[in-house]
């Protein structure tokens, strides 16, 4: 039952365990101060240095948290620093690092970076042109992005429902804002931001409502208490049933699983491309991390009841994502639908409810994250006078004009399609293996069929790039600065290495051990 606080004791926060998150949040706060006090011409570079320094420092601190320190609860049990949390936090930090390299790129667009010079100006107005002329940049995206990263770090390690909800909001709100900040096609971008915000707020409400119902059921908000209540109840409790369903809705929305996927294509298309890469990779890592912890730790004893729902959602997600991707004519929308299909595959790992399921899901997230950032990085380089040339017809004959870039993009597409010797194959193999071992053979078979469907549209793009003749007034492939080049190289290296020598990362994902309870 609900316990009342009788005496106030100073909470012991275990700051050493929370250090990586604190560094990131600290950098975000410092970033706001930079906005306020640093002169305009120094602002952007200061923010970039600050952000990257914070990510590196957080990662370094993360590595030091090993041994006995790992596997303990911090902040009075609200945050769990265990193997999976460390692995997922590390993944978020590394992927953010790569995605932020794209944020910092300012050579591909003649007028500046990927973000609107001033978010407040009306699209197409005099003020906007004036801001562009003066070379104003929205360096506020850096602290916003850092807040989002901090929220993700907290999301994957949250060990009670309230912390998880707060983390969800901290990671989401900056994303809503940044989605509306595209430099080109600003109306589309603002529309996407509004859609994302409304639907996101709706799903957050679902999550919060579900959390309240689960609290009503178990009398506690921490995952241990919910798990303990589960062990003590027999039969179905409506509060548990509806609560589980509602928190699942919130998380399914965040990962973009069918039937909560409708926002993905619009938002991925409208958002500035570097941000799309960041959202598509890091947000999914964080949301799946939270989903794993919630459904394995708190609701693990209830898995026989929620697994059928996951089966249906996984099957629908794979099929809808793959089939609708075929009909797309816009590269960003196609990648968005492809990412929906990938979510279905990752769900196979989640619904296996085993250690293999946990490790294969985490491995998949790493592999998928790198390939996704890489793919969106390529999209940001193929441009015409109106900005990115995302219509599929613009990509015809790209392989003849710039074979290296087309080859790199082909690598990412092959990885999405799950062709051997790319990271996509190893990760699909891992989740299929976990799925079959977990008794989900029908889902795996649908997964295989969906892979074949998905291969069709990935291959279609390859055909278009290599076998078609280039259009006369086709787009140009801009030569990026070192930022994008490094990001692309990292993505390529990860995609190839995780395909050929996945051993070390698989080792890491397998040996992180179970969640602490």
């Amino acid at each position, binding site marked *: 039952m609900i316990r009342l606080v009788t005496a106030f004791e100073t909470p012991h926060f275990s700051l050493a365990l929370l250090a990586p998150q604190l560094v990131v949040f600290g950098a975000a706060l410092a970033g706001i101060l930079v906005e306020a006090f640093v002169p305009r011409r120094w602002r952007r570079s200061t923010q970039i240095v600050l952000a990257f320094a914070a990510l590196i420092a957080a990662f370094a601190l993360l590595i030091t948290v090993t041994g006995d320190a790992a596997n303990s609860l911090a902040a009075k049990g609200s945050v769990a620093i265990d193997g999976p949390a460390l692995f997922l936090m590390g993944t978020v930090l590394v992927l953010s690092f790569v995605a932020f390299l794209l944020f910092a790129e300012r050579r591909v667009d003649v007028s500046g970076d990927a973000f609107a010079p001033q978010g407040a100006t009306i699209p197409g107005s005099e003020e906007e042109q004036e801001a562009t002329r003066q070379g104003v940049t929205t360096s506020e995206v850096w602290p916003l992005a850092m807040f989002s990263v901090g929220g993700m770090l907290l999301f994957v390690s949250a060990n009670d429902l309230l912390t998880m909800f707060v983390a969800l909001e901290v990671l989401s709100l900056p994303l809503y804002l940044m989605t509306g900040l595209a430099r080109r096609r600003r109306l589309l971008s603002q529309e996407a931001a509004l859609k994302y915000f409304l639907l996101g707020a709706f799903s957050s409400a679902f999550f919060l409502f579900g959390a309240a119902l689960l609290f009503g059921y178990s009398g506690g908000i921490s995952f241990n208490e919910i798990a303990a209540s589960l062990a003590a109840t027999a039969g179905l409790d409506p509060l548990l049933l509806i609560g589980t369903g509602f928190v699942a809705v919130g998380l399914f929305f965040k990962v973009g699983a069918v039937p909560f996927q409708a926002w993905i294509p619009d938002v991925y298309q409208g958002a500035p491309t570097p941000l799309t890469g960041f959202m598509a990779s890091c947000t999914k890592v964080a949301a799946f991390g939270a989903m794993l912890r919630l459904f394995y730790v708190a609701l693990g004893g209830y898995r026989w009841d929620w697994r059928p729902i996951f089966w249906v959602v996984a099957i629908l997600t794979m099929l809808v994502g793959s089939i609708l991707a075929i009909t797309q004519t816009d590269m960003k929308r196609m990648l968005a639908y492809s990412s929906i299909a990938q979510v279905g595959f990752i769900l196979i790992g989640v619904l296996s409810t085993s250690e293999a399921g946990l490790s294969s899901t985490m491995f998949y997230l790493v592999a998928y994250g790198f390939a996704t950032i890489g793919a969106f990085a390529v999209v940001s380089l193929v441009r015409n006078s109106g900005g990115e040339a995302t219509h599929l017809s613009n990509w015809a004959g790209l392989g003849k004009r710039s074979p290296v870039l087309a080859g790199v993009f082909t690598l990412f597409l092959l990885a999405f399609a799950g*062709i051997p010797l790319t990271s996509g194959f190893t990760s699909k193999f891992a989740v299929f*293996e976990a799925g079959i071992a977990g008794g989900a053979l029908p889902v795996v078979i649908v997964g295989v069929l969906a892979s074949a469907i998905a291969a069709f549209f990935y291959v279609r793009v390859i*055909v278009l790039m290599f076998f078609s003749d280039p259009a006369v007034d086709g787009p140009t492939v801009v030569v990026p600065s070192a930022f994008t080049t490094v990001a692309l190289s990292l993505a390529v290296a990860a995609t190839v290495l995780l395909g050929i020598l996945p051993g070390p990362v698989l080792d890491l994902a397998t040996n992180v051990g179970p969640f602490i309870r």
Partner: protein
Amino acid sequence: MTDFPWLTTLGVVPLVGALAVAFVPAGRERLAKQLALFVSLLVLALTVAMAAQFEPDSTSAFQFVEQHTWIKQFGISYSLGVDGIALVLIALLAALVPVVIVASWNDAESSTHRPQTMFALFLALEGVVVFVFAATDLFLFYVAFEVMLVPVYFLIGMFGGAQRSYAAVKFLLYSLLGGLVLLVGVVALYVTSVHQLGTGTFDFTQLVGLPIATSTQRWLFVAFFFAFAVKAPMVPFHTWLPDAAAAGTPGTNTLLVGVLDKVGTFGMIRLCLPLFPDAARWAAPVVVTLAVVSVVYAALVAIGQGDMNRLVAYTSVSHFGVIVLGVFAFTRLGDSGSVFYMVAHGLSAAALFLTAGYLIRRRGSAQIAAFGGVARVAPVLAGVFLLAGLASLSLPGLASFVGELTTLVGSYQRWPVAAVISVIGIVLAAVYVLHMYKRVAQGPETDDVLGFSDLGLREAWAIGPIIVVTVVLGFFPQPVFKWVNPAVDRTLAVVGLSEPAPTVPVSGAGSNPGEQP
């Protein structure tokens, strides 16, 4: 020299050669071709050197074994080794690649792509297919099986005829679908091995003889067989082959039909039979029926073809039916005969595709109706074309006769009705080959063929060795059988069906030993 990694060398040399050829600068095309030819001859020499050390009577199942841990989390190892079956197919591959390179010397000039690419793809294909035949780890086999598609896809898509893009995609999608179904089977077999052995493995030698439950075994068999039936190809999964052959260059077709499709029948005899012996016996009636349908149906369709390449493709589908029939005869004669026929058919298909390619290149059309009276203008070319056709219709004295005869006799021992019906295929073969030859080479010469030059020196050097080997093996097939028989015996021992005793009436006693239980 026994410790020398022969098989790795055989696989890696062409792959490195492919890279080297691909990077030969523009303007030095001749150098690229010479380099490619040199590498392929080097591989041939290495193969001969390796084959010389092969001990047919060895007691171990595999020779030239290499084994290294690759991904230990999944029990995956880099394991290579060959038995007699794999050895003869690798030898066939090594022999055909130099021939194809010489025959395709000028084929890339009519395309918009660099000749370097074409020759690099030939070598890359050779390297990957070596790994397919030599892999004794199922995972490695699967990876090579899938990667093998990539060079063929580009060979068809970049250098083919008018319908090349469509044909390349159709080829890829059929193969991917088959491959993904195989993937489910491979993963499911791995999961089964986890249950049976405690630790999962992909090692072929450990998987053979696993006592797999009947229903599981049947499902696994179906998954494996489906992939190989698409690859082989068998009716009704064959429609991609005529399209691919019609669009491909002669060199591509030779490697595709001559070697690549043998992977399908190789997979049946090397994987389906020993891994799932009970299921293979259970499925044999259906498989044999499909095989007979392939033999007769494809032969009938071949008669009606107006395009030479499509005709040769259909003849191959018909001949693959005979090979599959032999594999599922489960008799020494039938199975050894079918392996021999794989080699013989590789040679005859190569001869027919290459000579047809010579004709098509001169005329600029693959339509049979576009020719007439070639024998008067280019007698040697027409003669070689006839010889290639005769090899295809299994003229006694040529290798395919030995293969077809032993296969059918061996099949008769187990499936008399099926074998008798399949003999119709031989009759129909005479119809379609001679009918095609008559329309192309006999009769009055048409205006279009008047300018035909006779067989050139380079062309003769390409086709000559094939014809020599075909004739030699036709009279002296024993070496191949000596290599293949022990491997076939081992496989049949696992399948566990006794050799049907010949039903020769015994004088006096009146009892028929064939009817003994």
